[in-house]
């Protein structure tokens, strides 16, 4: 093994190597920006700015059309040149009904079409107009115009690496390209292997069999010299379905928020570095509101609120189901057990149910089951995209798939924020977060989670909030 080769051990195997599925974190970590590049990318090192990658610049042409100037002299790994046609084809392919590309979900109901202006210029039109189109282009992986509209097993891209071997279930090997348009990264060859057990991943780095384990459990992060924590863009919260009594009473929801001693979790069941959350998106997101306060831990106050509600005939004694998902994150079961205990201390009757993915999924999304008891879904939400639009609608809008509230003011704020740009957009989002948190008390926001990476001492790598979904080999350096 040359000393510029690295081995990276991942927890989840790749079931596909399809570029248009790179928004799935297990695929994205290997492919995104290593093999397949995008027009734009989110620069996490600089506070989450949208930066150019294959596009050098872009401008809004009005009525929903954006014009992208493409980087010249870029070659695909199969030797063909990159031009506007490729962008057009990539967009069409990703949105084609014939294959279920996942990246298209970011476009929602927006219709996107591309037209070639000249080989290095392309116009992308969104209907209805899409104020964050350049950000959306950070999910569109560019493939050559010849790529058929079906899932490929030989991804071709413009990135600094090519896929040189894939043995399903065992390993994937990427080799550095000589004719990459940008600066040559330090890593010449990256071998990805897969171990679902966190302890084994950690052990592999320790034993020198791997150089990087981008995510290990906090419990295995025992060596400060090699193990680094990073915010992993997941936010933990309890989703409340406010249409079911007693949850329809705001006091009850406030009591829920007050009953939980968030500080007690940090450094015990959850690692140091975990932040109490006041919004469903991480602080690096546009419009994140620093003025919102974390609810005080006040079990007595909670009890009082409950009594008040009870006096008004709210059935606060109805047993509430706290529904968690096993193995969702390290200590998931324990965290939920602790939540249950805290809520019970504040006077709630809570039953804990830990479910398997699919079962929890069934309860999480609409249509909700008829005749359901009051439920608290203990879930994680992941938004590393830097804009709340990917969360707000379906978490808080009356028509949102996973929304537990129905509030005209919230609906209005979401609609307006989605259409706005720039400062205006940020302001509206801030307002939305405050409303949801303090006026509506839509849910019990808990924590912004952190992940851990184990990095062998011979390499240098700084995990960021993006590490969950992509891992650019070019960011890896060698210490000597």
């Amino acid at each position, binding site marked *: 093994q040359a000393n510029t080769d690295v081995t990276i051990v991942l927890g989840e195997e790749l079931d596909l190597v399809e570029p248009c599925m790179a928004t799935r974190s297990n695929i994205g970590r290997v492919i995104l920006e290593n093999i397949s590049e995008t027009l734009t990318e989110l620069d996490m090192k600089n506070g989450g700015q949208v930066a150019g990658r294959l596009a050098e610049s872009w401008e809004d042409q009005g009525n929903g059309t954006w014009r992208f100037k493409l980087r010249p002299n870029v070659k695909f790994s199969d030797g063909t040149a990159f031009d506007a046609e490729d962008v057009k084809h990539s967009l069409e392919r990703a949105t084609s009904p014939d294959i279920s590309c996942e990246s298209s979900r970011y476009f929602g109901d927006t219709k996107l079409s591309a037209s070639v202006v000249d080989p290095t210029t392309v116009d992308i039109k969104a209907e209805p107009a899409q104020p964050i189109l350049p950000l959306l282009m950070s999910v569109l992986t560019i493939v050559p115009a010849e790529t058929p509209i079906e899932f490929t097993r030989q991804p071709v891209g413009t990135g600094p690496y090519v896929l040189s071997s894939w043995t399903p279930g065992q390993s994937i090997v990427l080799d550095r390209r000589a004719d990459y348009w940008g600066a040559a990264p330090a890593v010449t060859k990256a071998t990805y292997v897969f171990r679902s057990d966190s302890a084994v991943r950690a052990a592999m780095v320790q034993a020198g069999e791997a150089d990087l384990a981008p995510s290990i459990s906090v*419990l295995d992060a*025992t060596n400060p010299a090699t193990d680094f924590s990073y915010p992993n863009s997941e936010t933990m919260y309890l989703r409340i379905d406010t249409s079911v009594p007693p949850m329809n009473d705001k006091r009850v929801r406030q009591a829920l928020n007050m009953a939980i001693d968030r500080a007690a979790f940090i450094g015990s*069941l959850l690692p140091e570095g975990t932040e109490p959350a006041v919004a469903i998106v991480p602080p690096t997101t546009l419009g994140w509101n620093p003025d919102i306060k974390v609810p005080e831990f006040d079990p007595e106050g909670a009890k009082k609120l409950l009594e008040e509600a009870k006096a008004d005939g709210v059935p606060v004694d109805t047993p509430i189901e706290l529904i968690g998902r*096993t193995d969702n994150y*390290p200590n998931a079961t*324990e965290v939920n057990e602790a939540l249950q205990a805290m809520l019970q201390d504040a006077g709630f009757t809570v039953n804990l149910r*830990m479910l*398997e993915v*699919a079962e929890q999924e069934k309860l999480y999304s609409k249509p909700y089951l008829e005749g359901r008891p009051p439920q608290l879904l203990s879930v994680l939400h992941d938004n590393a995209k830097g804009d709340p639009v990917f969360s707000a609608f379906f978490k808080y809008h009356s028509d949102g798939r996973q929304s537990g509230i129905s509030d005209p003011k919230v609906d209005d704020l979401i609609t307006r924020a989605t259409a706005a740009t720039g400062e205006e957009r940020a302001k509206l989002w801030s307002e939305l977060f405050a409303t949801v948190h303090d006026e509506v008390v839509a849910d019990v926001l808990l924590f912004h989670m952190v992940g851990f990476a184990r990095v062998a001492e011979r390499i240098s790598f700084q995990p960021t909030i993006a590490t969950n979904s992509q891992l650019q080999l070019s960011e890896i350096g060698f210490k000597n």
Partner: protein
Amino acid sequence: MTLADDTLAPPAEKPAALRLLAMLRRDKVACLAAAFLVLVILCALFGPMLLGEAATKQNLRGRNAPPFSLEQGWLMVLGADQLGRSLLARIVVAAQNTMLVAAGAVFFSALIGTVLGLFAGYGGKKTGEAIARLADVIMSFPSLLLAVIVLYVFNPSVANLIVVLAITRIPVYLRTTRAEILEVRERMFVQAAKVMGASHRRIMFRHILPMVLPTLLTIATLDFAFVMLAESSLSFLGIGIQPPEITWGLMVAQGRPYLNNAWWLAFWPGLAIILTTMSLNLLSSWMRIALDPVQRWRLEGGAKNNG
């Protein structure tokens, strides 16, 4: 024919149970095993009543407290778990669910499997063949899938768990019984029983079954451990028993990530599983000998070993 008067008959022997007890007393290992099992059964019966409270009392500050320290009271001698609950109390309380699931699953699978096996081996050719093929099907039906189906369509209660685990273990008993019968039924004493007019049922249960039983018992005791651990992996996947209910298996599974920095979380419940299985097995090998007249001398006093 006249009946001789009763004086001819030798005095009735000591009841079989007493004789077994006397034999048990002589075998120290088996005695220890039996004592441990009695303890487990007592825990299962009374544990939740006595320590139910202590087993759920959380204390995040005292989480993962190491074992062998009496500072926090005797309940903490085995240490505390991730939420600062007493491991000792939890193990005692968990004995109930654990035994319910394990004993239930093993009992029903052994019962159903053995009876089906008896029919497969001794019944008609057609039924035998059909039952054997059924065993094939069950054997190749992944238990996990069955668990997902049953526990998804119904809910993960102790009863359903028993059903799932029992079904998946049926084939071993079935096939073992059947295989042994194929041989035992050719023995002469089975024919002798037939000549006496013994019904199929009597032949199956009185003559053939006792020959097969020791082997089944060996398998069953080891299945105990298997079922406890299988149950834990189901819990781990989110389709088994779920907190706040506890079983040893679940405790083992939950302690797994802590193997490196708080070994006691998984160790004690694991040890409980091992000791239970080992006790059961030692007791069953003791029983195999105690119930076999040809072997029984090994356990009877009086003989000094001069061989």
